[in-house]
């Protein structure tokens, strides 16, 4: 079974998937808590909240978690179901392109460059 090179990539991805899932769950819980304790939540409050550097950084980590979690999952789906090498690579390019686009876009949203 020469197709398997000794690597620990599967293990690392496994750990990343679990950690990112936990982080995303905690972040969503935190945001929901903010929404529930602020009865009269409005644009100002949200803007104030997201002008804080720690909130921006934690939000950025949230985006990174989704994207890395998503990439690993999409990679697994492709290596299960897409056998044609050309189609599989095309799919990888598309998914990677999307992920990079979301990454740049989320930085723009969080830090609000003009």
């Amino acid at each position: 079974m020469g197709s398997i090179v000794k690597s620990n990539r599967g293990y690392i991805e496994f750990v990343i998937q679990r950690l990112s899932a936990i982080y995303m769950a905690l972040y969503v819980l935190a945001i929901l808590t903010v929404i529930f304790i602020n009865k009269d939540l409005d644009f100002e409050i949200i803007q104030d909240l997201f002008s804080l550097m720690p909130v921006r950084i934690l939000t950025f980590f949230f985006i990174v978690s989704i994207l890395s979690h998503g990439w690993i999952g999409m990679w697994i789906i492709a290596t299960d179901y897409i056998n044609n090498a050309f189609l599989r690579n095309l799919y990888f390019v598309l998914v990677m392109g999307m992920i990079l686009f979301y990454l740049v876009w989320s930085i723009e949203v969080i830090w609000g460059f003009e």
Partner: protein
Amino acid sequence: MAKVNKLEFSIYRYNPDDDKSVYMQDYTLEFDIEQNLMLLGALERIKDELDPTLSFRRSCREGVCGSDAMNINGKNGLACITPISSLPRKIAIRPLPGLPVVRDLVVDLEIFYKQYARVKPYLINRQPTPKKERLQSPEDRKKLNGHYECILCGACTTACPSFWWNPDKFVGPAGLLQANRFIVDSRDDAELERLQDLQDPFSVFRCRTIMNCVEVCPKKLNPTKAINNIKKEMLKIK
């Protein structure tokens, strides 16, 4: 008077020499309900009385050798320990899924055994050989329960979608159950290597906890639990 009943079979047929295609062939078998017939017995009667060209593997006829695993009404199992009374009167028999068919119900298990061999299913111990034997405490011996009983019938691995998609890379439930059997064995000292050998994205991590293996195992073993133990042991390294 014997109570006679009729069984309708629909059996997968393929002969590489003269058949152009694969087809399902129907057989009707009369049997005495009071006879406690097993499915294997029924197949043998079809071969004897109706169609000597039907091929299938079998040996022990008591659930020990693992030769007669097949797909029975959509679910993998051993024909020799499947009572006809547990099945409906219409029975569809197919070879184990996901493997090349050699003929009728006989599949080529080569890739299954290759994956089994990959986990080094033997004791590795680099300590000097003791005069008599390597002792093990009763507690340590207990850890092997649920592993050594496997008869390598292949029902679990061929029921696993992850194995269907990547049979050359994913070890599959049967092989991983044996990997864990040696990982937990107190007399084996190659635990670290065994774990490191399985850390690529396919060998063990392709298991998505579908649990078809647990559902079909005729020995009531739990490969999913063993697989999860391998992952847990990996987390303890370093």
